[in-house]
């Protein structure tokens, strides 16, 4: 039984997919099934409707999650009322969303349901903190959505599983390289505790950090536009906190500085890096460093060798080359059988 014993060492876990149909749902289903067999009670939610919940273009809801008897789940009222199994409502949030009030229920039998939970990092953090206090649950599971498109960070959980597969790329090399890039961003070191405490509540505006632990607000909202990037780069400051997106253009501009090797970028978490892999690696090669305020322990990578278009990669080969490239356990959930 791969990696489920490891999961239980943590209080929370998110499953993050590299793209659609990369097997995230299967992976989550696998984890839920195994936890059920171990007689453990999970609570599950998903990074909300603003993330991947409903495809804005096709208006198709995301796949339903299979819920085992006895487990808790948090979703919005309108999805809850469509259920076709018995569940007991245990808690309803006061503030309504456009899809009705958010509620937590306990499955009284096995069933499936579209799950859409908290849609921002703060609410998700609160869910992870409050749920085990309210209900007798062993672990909180977060269906992490396609991480980069979501305003809520999956990195708020203590541990993480990454799902990747042929749907992302049918070319083995591209798939491995793409996964390795995300893997490398996830594995970026965590910021020192005192800096994390200092910056945790600053979610807007660039900050410069001094050697002496001082924090300076240069009055720049973000590092997105060419003017903003210019301002950030030209100050010559070395320790920079970027609460929002780290763009390709920003990294390129920092690469042009002579002191790239002294630059430390403090970022919220890996999902805020929106840079080309080559720029990202060039920055690291020149000695630039990243520190994440939120860092989850990546426990495993799950691969789905089948793409919806019918491409099929050889499972053993895929697992082997992925494991070679990443150096952590890689599983083909389907192959190992649910």
């Amino acid at each position, binding site marked *: 039984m791969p990696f489920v014993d490891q999961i239980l060492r943590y209080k929370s876990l998110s499953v993050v997919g590299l793209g659609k149909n990369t097997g995230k749902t299967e992976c989550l289903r696998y984890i839920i099934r195994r936890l059920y067999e171990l007689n453990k009670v999970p609570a599950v939610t998903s990074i909300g409707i603003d993330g991947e919940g409903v495809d804005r273009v096709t208006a198709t809801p995301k796949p339903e999650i299979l819920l085992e008897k006895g487990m808790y789940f948090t979703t919005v009222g309108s999805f809850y009322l469509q259920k*076709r199994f018995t569940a007991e409502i245990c808690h309803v949030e006061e503030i309504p969303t456009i899809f009705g009030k958010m509620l937590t229920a*306990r499955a009284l039998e096995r069933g499936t349901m579209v799950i859409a939970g908290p849609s921002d990092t703060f609410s998700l953090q609160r869910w992870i903190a409050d749920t085990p206090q309210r209900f007798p649950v062993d672990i909180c599971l977060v269906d992490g959505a396609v991480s980069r498109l979501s305003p809520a960070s999956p990195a708020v959980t203590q541990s993480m599983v990454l799902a990747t597969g042929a749907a992302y790329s049918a070319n083995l090399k591209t798939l491995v390289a793409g996964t390795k890039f995300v893997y490398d961003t996830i594995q970026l070191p965590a910021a020192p505790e005192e800096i994390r405490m200092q910056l945790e509540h600053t979610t807007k505006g660039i900050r410069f950090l001094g050697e002496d632990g001082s924090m300076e607000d240069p009055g720049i909202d973000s590092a997105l536009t060419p003017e903003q990037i210019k301002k950030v780069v030209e100050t010559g400051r070395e320790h920079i906190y970027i609460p929002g997106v780290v763009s390709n253009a920003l990294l390129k501009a920092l690469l042009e500085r002579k002191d790239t090797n002294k630059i430390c970028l403090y970022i919220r978490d890996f999902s805020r890096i929106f840079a080309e892999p080559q720029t990202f690696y060039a920055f690291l090669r020149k000695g630039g460093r990243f520190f994440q305020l939120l860092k989850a322990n990546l426990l495993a990578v799950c691969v789905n060798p089948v793409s919806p278009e019918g491409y099929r990669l050889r499972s053993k080969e895929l697992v082997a080359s992925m494991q070679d490239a990443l150096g952590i356990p890689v599983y083909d959930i389907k192959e190992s059988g649910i």
Partner: protein
Amino acid sequence: MTFSRFADKIDGLHYLAEKMELSGSRVRRYLMKTPFCTKAEVLESHFDILQKAFDILETPGTGPVVMQLKHLFTTVHDISGTLEDLKQHRVLDEIALFEIKYFASLCRDFRLLCEKLDFTSQAPDCLQPVFDLLDPDSTGTAGFYIYDSYSKSLAYARKKAAATDPDKDLALWGRATDRVLQEELLVRKELSAKLSRMYDVLQSNFDRLAYLELWFAKAELAGKYGMVRPVIVPATGTGTEVFSVDGMVNPVIADILAADGMTFQPVSLMLQQGPCLLTGANMSGKTVVLKTLALVQALTQFSFFIPARKAVIPLVKDVFLVIGDKQDHYRGLSSYAAEMLELDKIMGIVKEGADVLVLADEPARTTNPAEGAAILCALIAFLQQYNVRSLVSTHYGELDVSVRKLRVAGFEGGKATGRLDPASVSKYMNYSLIEDKDDAVPKEALLIAQLLGVDASFIQMAQNFLKKNGNERIQTGA
């Protein structure tokens, strides 16, 4: 007339509402909807409740229970939508049924705490029948689902559905679960019908929880601002009631002063029926007296304690505060025009015989002094004719009316030396009110301008103009 309407016309009500610790917009809405009460017996019963809440907060040892109560207030959900559904006999969904059950269990907790605090008169009613209806298995927990025990056919339908597998036979599973939904709907219809019959007690409890919170918030506010229970006098129509307030404080200004380490000098006054003039130097706080009086009268009739040492407040039908700063550019009205129209409206209401309190700040000050004084005299004569309790501030002196006068004791300039910044003028101001027999008004405008550091030659020029007009009584430090 609601609190919300009054708060828009009387300074300080919004401020105090903001200072009240309320759990959310649900309770704030109840506060805003509070009616302006003109019935003495209702107000007396409200003040009894408020006094009781106030005493509970002051009693040593109640702290932990009060904390629990305050926490419980934050857990009340706004179920007004669900209550409306019950009133309209609509069928509730599972989430709404859960909310009702949760509400019933909260009411039980509130009753327990009210008992501990000996405040049972304001506690919500017992909702045990509601809770029992939604807890057929007697689990005692707040969780809810459509229990099997509600209906044998539901239990049977569920059993059948559980035996099907959507992965093996989707159509069969679909039919089986459809059946479950139908049975659940029947149960929900029945539950909703039963709950609809209990709508009154549910709605009244929902209201009561908001009022309960408001009583404690008002009591806490009273503690914070040293407010007291006013003695109220019902309107008898005889015109013999006397308004009197001792040591009145304006909480808004007191807070601003406190931030600068200063204190508000309490003001005392008495008002009989009929008009009274209020005179005083510039910056002597005439406007503050008027605004605070309006606030005190309004607070009383919205069942609040009032910021004073003690007070006797005759009840009125309405309070009018005419500050004369209501120019309305959008309607093309100057401040003068707006003020005249407002006075006209008030006079209309007075003529209809309503017992009101009128507080006017320097009416007709924005027009020429000759006509302005005439308008003021006419207003006083009108207020006298209709015996309207009113306080009217003015700078106009030697008016051709015989009326009671109060004067702000005013500037004690002897203590002042050198240049003063506007804030420190208040240090030399005696804000207490004294009966004034003199027809003249205090003329300290130039003195104050001088102390504020206004250009000396300019002041000298003004002095010369005064002398030219034969007025030698003006005192300045020069």
